[in-house]
């Protein structure tokens, strides 16, 4: 039996060609590809047979899977997901025990498959903190990645270690990238789709890119697709004009908060966080956290859990800065204050010598 193409499968499931093209156009624009790419994406995706995907879940909370599959009623996004051959997924597969592991082995036989990982991998004490079917997570990952075409680390735990890796990290949790770097697993093309959880359309967009072009999309220095992680939340935040105007909410229930002013002083991590929340948004494009009145917690960045309080402004110190660092900061502060005072005195001088304009000034 030949596998049906994606286009055939979609038609069978009642997804119109128009809806499919809309998805392709949205994907093209999200990934900053020219609009003329949409038909190419549609053509490539439409012809594809279902590629084999093995989804491995390690030290995780299933939030990433929830984000993708349970977020809203069936859409082209999650049908696309139905239409890759998801051959192994703890949460979603019907098979259990040996049958499940057999499915993984069979999918691996063909090679050229994609491995999606969510969760970090514990390596302390021989990896005993998390085992599946008698195998440690590390062994299962090493075994599965060996013949993979590429690996996608879904979520901050897989991409950067996430909450399991947070201090004091009792299980010795590591990210997929860290394991590739230290040689514990084979090095393969790796895409980090970080976020706690990642935005569903970012996951499907990355898969669509891979299926269309057969290549890994352009990545940033942290291995994340630039198309989605190129801008900071702050750059694209609708509250940015208030930041520019110096209007900040000081508490969560003050006048400023009610007026929708910038949450920077309440600890918003938007300026240092790269993700597509402010543009792609959540819950079928309804909103993103800042729109509901809470600052960004920086979940798509490395070590977000250890980066100090979610409610302390970014400008506040997070660690012990005594000694030399303290001196340097003091010197910097003095220099900054002096520059600020000088600028202010320039302004005062200008303001003092300003003369009110009258209509007589307009007459020659």
């Amino acid at each position, binding site marked *: 039996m030949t596998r049906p193409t994606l286009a055939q499968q979609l038609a069978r499931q009642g997804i119109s060609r128009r809806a499919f093209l809309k998805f392709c156009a949205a994907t093209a624009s999200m990934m900053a590809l020219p609009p003329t790419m949409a038909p190419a994406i549609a053509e490539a995706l439409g012809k594809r047979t279902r590629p084999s995907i093995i989804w491995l879940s390690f030290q995780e909370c299933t939030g990433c899977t929830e984000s993708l599959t349970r977020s809203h009623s069936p859409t082209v996004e999650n049908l696309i997901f139905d239409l890759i051959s998801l051959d192994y997924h703890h949460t979603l597969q019907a098979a259990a025990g040996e049958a499940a592991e057999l499915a993984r082995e069979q999918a691996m036989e063909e090679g050229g498959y994609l491995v999606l990982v969510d969760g970090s991998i514990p390596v302390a004490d021989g990896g005993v903190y998390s085992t599946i079917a008698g195998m440690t997570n590390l062994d299962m990952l090493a075994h599965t990645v060996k013949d993979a075409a590429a690996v996608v680390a879904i979520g901050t735990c897989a991409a950067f270690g996430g909450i399991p890796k947070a201090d004091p990290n009792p299980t010795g949790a590591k990210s997929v990238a860290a394991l590739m770097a230290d040689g514990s697993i084979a090095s393969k093309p790796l895409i980090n789709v970080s976020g706690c959880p990642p935005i569903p359309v970012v996951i499907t967009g990355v898969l669509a890119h891979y299926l269309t072009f057969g290549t890994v999309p352009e990545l940033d220095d942290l291995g994340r697709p630039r198309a989605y992680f190129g801008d900071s939340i702050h*750059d694209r935040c609708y509250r940015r004009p208030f930041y520019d105007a110096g209007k900040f909410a000081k508490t969560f229930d003050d006048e400023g908060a009610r007026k929708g002013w910038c949450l920077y002083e309440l600890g918003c991590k938007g300026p240092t966080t790269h993700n597509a929340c402010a543009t792609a948004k959540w819950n079928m494009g309804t909103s993103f956290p800042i729109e509901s009145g809470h600052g960004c917690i920086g979940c798509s960045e490395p070590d977000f859990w250890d980066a100090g309080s979610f409610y302390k402004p970014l400008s506040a110190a997070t660690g012990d800065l005594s000694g030399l660092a303290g001196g340097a900061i003091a010197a910097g502060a003095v220099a900054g204050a002096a520059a600020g005072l000088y600028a202010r005195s320039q*302004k005062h001088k200008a303001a003092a010598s300003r003369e009110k304009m009258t*209509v007589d000034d*307009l007459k020659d």
Partner: protein
Amino acid sequence: MSPSLERGINAFVNQIDGPIASYFNSCVHCGMCAHACLFYTETGDPKYTPIYKTEPLRRAWKQNFTFWGRLLSKLGLDKKITDEELAEWETLIYDGCTLCGRCTAVCPVGNDITYMIRKSREAMAASGHAPEGLKMATTRAIEIGSPMGVTIDTLKAQIKHTEKETGLTVPLDVQGAEYLMLLSSAEIAQFNEIIGAVTEIFDRAGVSWTLSSTAFEATNSGIQIGSADLAAELVQRIVDSAERLGVRTVISPECGHAYTALRWEGPNLIGRSYSFEVKHILEVLDELRADGRLQTSGRESARVTFHDPCQLVRRGGVVQQPRSLLNMVADDFVEMPDAGVMNWCCGGGGGVSANERANPLRAQVFSRKKRQLDGLQVEKLVTACSNCRNMLEEGLEENHMEDIEVVGLTELLAEYLPEKK
């Protein structure tokens, strides 16, 4: 003291605040603003690149507020701002910019270039480098009460005329009315049908409204020439009258820059918030439509399109309202390319139309609007700004496209009011 270079340079320094400093710091010189500006796209001359129009302001910032700039300035190695230079920039800042806001909308780092040019005008006016036409318009606005020299007597004559034509009373100085309607002098002098249209619509909708004999002029020449002091005086006249009459809402008429001046700049100019709301006439009409108070009968069969006044869509966010209103009456409504938030400017806003020297340039850049209209095959071009309307009528005439009729949306709606019961 009369305007002088010294006063102008001082004004440049005075205009620099946190946002301006961060804008200059963040500019990445990408040039996207050039392609957003019709003065650049229609002339191809790079001097019309919006951010380049702020060059004197940038130099003032650099020489006074940055380390290297100050150092070079102390050593006498920098280029001082001169009168000759300001004279050159006068044509860029006043003739080659309508403050339409397109450059701001495309700037990838979020610089409000329009605001930077608006601020530059403060220093240009203080240094005596403002166009003659704008100086005269502003003088008339302050001394006579309207930039075109329209007086309350002219308005009273128009009121009498309207009352005779409609058989309705046009309320003037009615204490405690809900709305205070302002007008632009172009509406009083040229497009006076608007007074009848508003009177009829408000009568059918049962709206309590009034005109004011102490504040009938909505436009603000002080902002266009760039004098916060004079602009504040003009805003204060409206605020005083509105508060004296005790109205809840002041309606800015079919004029774009008047709306920006009163709604967005006004409170900052007078240094306090208003005790009333400011809405554009289209916002008020759309609210009446949504409440079922504005009803129409019959449909317009002519093919129509809508020219978005720049200040309404880009500075004011009034995008959907004209479309909802047009759909009440128009059977064949087509959008022009780039309609809505990024619609191209008429070429005459922000004081350009008051500046005769800019006429040839204005006629040249109308080619953009012409291209937008080409191929639409419309019979009517609807808009909601009397200045746009003037510019469109002139532009169409010059391009032998007079068969397209230009109408104000409020008037169009008034034509389709149901018969009075």
